[in-house]
């Protein structure tokens, strides 16, 4: 039985046991992180769940740490493909020192989404540099596709297939060093 007075939300019984285990989450494009999963099981109706939202809180705390590392890692890697923080802020019309704030952990979910897009398609910075002008964007996409095809012909590897979420090493970001901004 728990120290707290936990009522099963499914049947109203207080015959509830608490279970804890170490569990893992996977950050999209980032590292795996661990957190303490807490669940409650009702001995009356056998229902099981995070009745008090404790697991949620543990998950979000651990996820935030992983996201901070992820953002910092991406921002530090940007310079390797020619994207400086000042340039990034200018082309995406962000206030100065926005990226410094992100690097220090002060970022939103929207900021993370943008970083993931940049990490996957670094050439989007070049499109932004041209104010997202449509014909230029098409040109850049075609150029990137040609580069990708060239790489595939040199190293004939993969056909796309839908795979289960992997809990292996995170996908390397900015792995295609041939993509140079403004090249």
């Amino acid at each position, binding site marked *: 039985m728990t120290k707290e007075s936990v*009522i*099963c*939300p*499914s*049947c*109203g*019984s207080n015959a509830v046991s608490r279970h804890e285990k170490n569990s893992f*989450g996977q950050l*999209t494009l980032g590292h795996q992180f661990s957190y303490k999963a807490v*669940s409650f099981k009702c001995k*009356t*109706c*056998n*229902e*099981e*769940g*995070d*009745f008090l*939202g404790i*697991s*949620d809180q543990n*998950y*979000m705390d651990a996820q935030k740490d992983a996201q901070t590392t992820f953002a910092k890692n991406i921002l530090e890697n940007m310079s390797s493909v020619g994207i400086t923080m000042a340039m990034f802020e200018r082309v995406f019309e962000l206030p100065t020192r926005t990226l410094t704030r992100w690097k220090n952990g002060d970022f939103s979910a929207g900021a993370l989404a943008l970083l993931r897009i940049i990490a996957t398609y670094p050439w989007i910075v070049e499109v932004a540099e041209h104010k997202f002008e449509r014909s230029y964007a098409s040109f850049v996409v075609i150029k990137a596709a040609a580069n990708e095809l060239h790489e595939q012909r040199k190293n004939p590897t993969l056909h796309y297939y839908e795979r289960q*979420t992997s809990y292996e090493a995170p996908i390397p970001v900015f792995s295609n060093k041939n993509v140079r901004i403004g090249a």
Partner: protein
Amino acid sequence: MDPHYKLDDFIGDCAMGNSKAFVTSGAQLTAESDFNLPTQKQVLEFIGNGGLEKPAFINSEVWDKNPEPKQAIMIDAYSFYSGFLYGYIAFRFQPKTGKWAIKSFKKNRDPDTRNLAFKGSLTNLLT
């Protein structure tokens, strides 16, 4: 057969968070694997924010594991869409606690009805 509950009541209560609803462990696992919603909070916010697109009632069944079977509790099941995904959700309400239990939240294994538009054309091609 009609739904036992008003879907809008369920959605409205999900918007209020886990004071009014909870996600069972099994449903939470598939919510994460199938819909990238790893926490109960995210599942409830998703539903409460109108995430169930084009919900269609499937059926209503008695909760067979109810420890108090004299007071029948029904489970409503719906199919829904979320962008490209075709989903399935089942939930019930416990009057004693005033809470909804989300029993299932997963990809729908039935054929996606959006694909049925091509069924006639494909049949014609094959015959």
